């Protein structure tokens, strides 16, 4: 293999990995296209042809034979990885790292995930539920119980997500669990209003990333990926809704 070909291969690998990491972790399509074009341009490719979709990426450089495909299979929310790819791309543009280092760091980034510790996520879920219950419903006495129910609901979601890996099912189950807990706690006299507790506690499960990205993708003219994200958000919302509705039916 000639050195030129090797170099082209490396450019394609770097750009495709960067793009895949960004889509997997919840970036909008326009940013992915922008970053990949920049990488190819900064690496010295004259032209680059891109086809970015929410389920896969196609890329060719210099108009040569041999475009490459990178499927996107997982889909999670980890916005830190997007920020890191962004930083690396900037460093590469400023010639602080070379292409080889860029590719290595991307592969490293792909294999590790640096989430906040689990206890902090639980606290965060509590701190989304309780304050929003007060903001929406002005019901101060139910603050603590909403924190508790929201935290337990997030725990159910997190654990199920680890085992079954279908986000919609975890959301459904977590919402149902939140409904049951709210009813039971109010029965035990620990809370006043089932409605307020449920409204606050499901807030950590709100699909904020797909909603925002869907709007931004449609505006940018990605008429396939935008509505696809919208469907993702809609199914999530429906899963949560059915979970709650199922509990309320048995009331």
């Amino acid at each position, binding site marked *: 293999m000639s050195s030129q070909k090797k170099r082209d291969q490396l450019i394609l690998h770097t750009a495709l990995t960067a793009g895949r990491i960004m889509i997997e972790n919840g970036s909008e399509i326009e940013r992915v296209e922008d970053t990949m074009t920049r990488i190819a341009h900064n690496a010295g490719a004259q032209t680059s042809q891109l086809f970015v979709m929410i389920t896969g990426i196609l890329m060719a450089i210099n108009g040569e034979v041999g475009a490459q495909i990178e499927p996107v299979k997982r889909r999670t929310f980890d*916005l830190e990885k997007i920020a890191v790819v962004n930083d690396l791309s900037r460093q590469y543009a400023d010639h602080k790292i070379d292409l080889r280092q860029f590719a290595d760091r991307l592969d490293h980034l792909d294999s590790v995930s640096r989430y906040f510790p689990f206890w902090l996520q639980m606290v965060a879920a509590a701190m989304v539920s309780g304050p929003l219950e007060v903001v929406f419903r002005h019901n101060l006495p139910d603050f603590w119980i909403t924190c508790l129910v929201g935290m337990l609901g997030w725990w159910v979601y997190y654990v199920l997500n680890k085992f079954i890996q279908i986000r919609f099912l975890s959301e459904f189950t977590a919402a149902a669990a939140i409904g049951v807990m709210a009813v039971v706690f109010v029965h035990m006299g620990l809370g006043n209003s089932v409605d307020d507790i449920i409204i606050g506690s499901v807030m950590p499960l709100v699909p904020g990333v797909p909603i925002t990205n869907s709007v931004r993708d449609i505006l940018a003219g990605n008429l396939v990926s935008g509505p696809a994200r919208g469907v993702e958000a809609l199914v999530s919302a429906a899963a949560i809704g059915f979970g*709650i509705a199922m509990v*309320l039916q048995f009331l």
Partner: protein
Amino acid sequence: MSVLEFIIEVAGTYVATLAFGILINIPRRALNVGGWIGVLGYVLYRFTVLWGGGYVIGNLLGAVAIGVASLQAAKLKKMPMILFNIPAIVPLVPGGQAYQMIKNFALGNNSTALVFLLQVVMISGAIAFGFLLSELVNRIQRRFWRHRKRL
């Protein structure tokens, strides 16, 4: 609305936005700014509703403010814009209305449920349209800066 209530709402919005940022793993240096952008959007929404502007206009203005402020933050911190606007819209999400809709559908009160469904659709549409308007502002600003640089 008394001053104490207002302070509680602002504090609650700030904490909730920041905590939602932790759940979707936003880098630590973006958390604080994201929280304040959430407060800005919510306060604008709250005052519009208080002064009789209606909840649709309120959500629209809130979403526009969030979109514009996120772009400024993104430029300042050299980070992607979605790190700031995703947690910031969480306080605007029509959770209460969506819940009432589900509840009334589940209990068979379809006509009440349809009223809430309409509200949810209107609010979501207002937020989406607000983002559209903020994108307009952002693009004009970008054009303006590019123009200035060339001169």
